[in-house]
């Protein structure tokens, strides 16, 4: 299947996108799949890897969740593990082909600042994690109205 995603002929490629949920759903296979696809890219252009998040995936990091954390500490711990795993995948991918990581979320207006704050927390946590292979290039955080 990875052979189908051979990007060696796509000379203008500059963005590769996927969803955070699909990385988690694929489990151990995600890293192998994405690394194989990345290794086929021959485009000399700087590459952006865009990871799309849904609001529910970062809710335990949002500001309004802070007062509730003592009740939902298990959820936060589980989310932290998931995000650590994802950053591990990003690190492995970076070793194959350098890219700029873009963490992206679609939100309705009132949650826009909240999701940026949550994504910044996730990045900060990954940076502090000694076990994670943190990227040499700082991630970009962005959101779009939906």
């Amino acid at each position, binding site marked *: *299947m990875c*052979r*189908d*995603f*051979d*990007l060696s*002929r*796509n*000379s*203008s*490629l*500059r*963005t*590769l*996108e*996927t*969803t955070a*949920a*699909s*990385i988690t*759903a*694929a489990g151990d*296979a*995600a890293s192998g*799949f*994405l690394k194989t*696809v990345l290794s086929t890219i021959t485009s000399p252009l*700087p590459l952006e890897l*865009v990871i*799309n998040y*849904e609001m529910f995936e970062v809710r335990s990091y949002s500001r309004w969740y802070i007062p509730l954390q003592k009740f939902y500490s298990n959820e936060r711990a589980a989310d932290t593990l998931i995000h650590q795993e994802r950053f591990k995948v990003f690190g492995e991918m970076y070793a194959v082909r*350098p890219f*700029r990581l*873009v963490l*992206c979320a*679609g939100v*309705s*207006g009132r949650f*826009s600042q909240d999701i*940026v704050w949550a994504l910044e927390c996730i990045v900060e946590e990954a940076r502090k994690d000694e076990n994670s292979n943190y990227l*040499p*290039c*700082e*991630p*970009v*955080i*962005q*959101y*779009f*109205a*939906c």
Partner: protein
Amino acid sequence: MTPTLRPSPIARLPQELIELIISDLIGYTSALLACSMTCYSWYIAAVPHLHHTLTTRNSLTCSDGGKSNWPRPLRNSYNLGLLPFVKQFHFHTFCDPFTPEKLDRSTLHHFSALTNLQELGIGELRVPNFMPNIQQYFGHFTPTLRSLVLWEPVGSSRQILYFIGLFSKLQDLRISYVSSVDQREGMAGAKLVPLSVPPLCGRLTLKCFTKEKLVKDMITFFGGLRFRYMDLFKVKCVRLLLGACADTLEGLRLYPTDPYGEELLSRGGSSERTQAIIRRKPRSRVPGF
């Protein structure tokens, strides 16, 4: 003494400034609605954004037991003279195919009032039922239509190709199926030739798509493909598509679970983001980025 009512300074603002203020509120329906009720000039600025999208859908929560409310939204908007403001029109119903019966004489008249439509989305479009007069139903969208969304379209590859070819300025194409199986491929309309060659240079989104012949026909009749972005999930002819857009493809959305994992039909995409609000660029430590 009779009190005199002084005109509001808001009414004296230049229209360009009002439009600038209103443009900051795009997507905030309640705010736009409030602005549209302040005065005539604010109404003029806000109303195109309020009626940008018209969607007709039936769902399990529909008040009349899941039946489609078609053509009520279209008729209501027509009666209020709002259809020229509509840029996106989505007819998305479940178990209620879009057939010529949906477009009787009066409804077709309302349908024709969508004079500035840029995106047309239709669920379960039965292309064979519209043949051979399909142009009479959809041809009036040709000058403005840039994006076509088809959920579960029914028809042979050549018939769907003919439908796509009606829109000579089409840039984005999205075809979604719920399942990869049961996309019956007949030979109907084997001699049909598309009426135009749309540029198709925007975004291609395919979900659970196995109609390889349609892709081959598009390459043949449209002289190749020029999409800049692709979003592919459970697509049978990935290699063919990537090869066809080898020189033009700038962005690709893929899924590590593809093709045998769970379906993750995500809404929207960052390449589709037309209203990106914020982009934080932290310090870069890698040259070139």
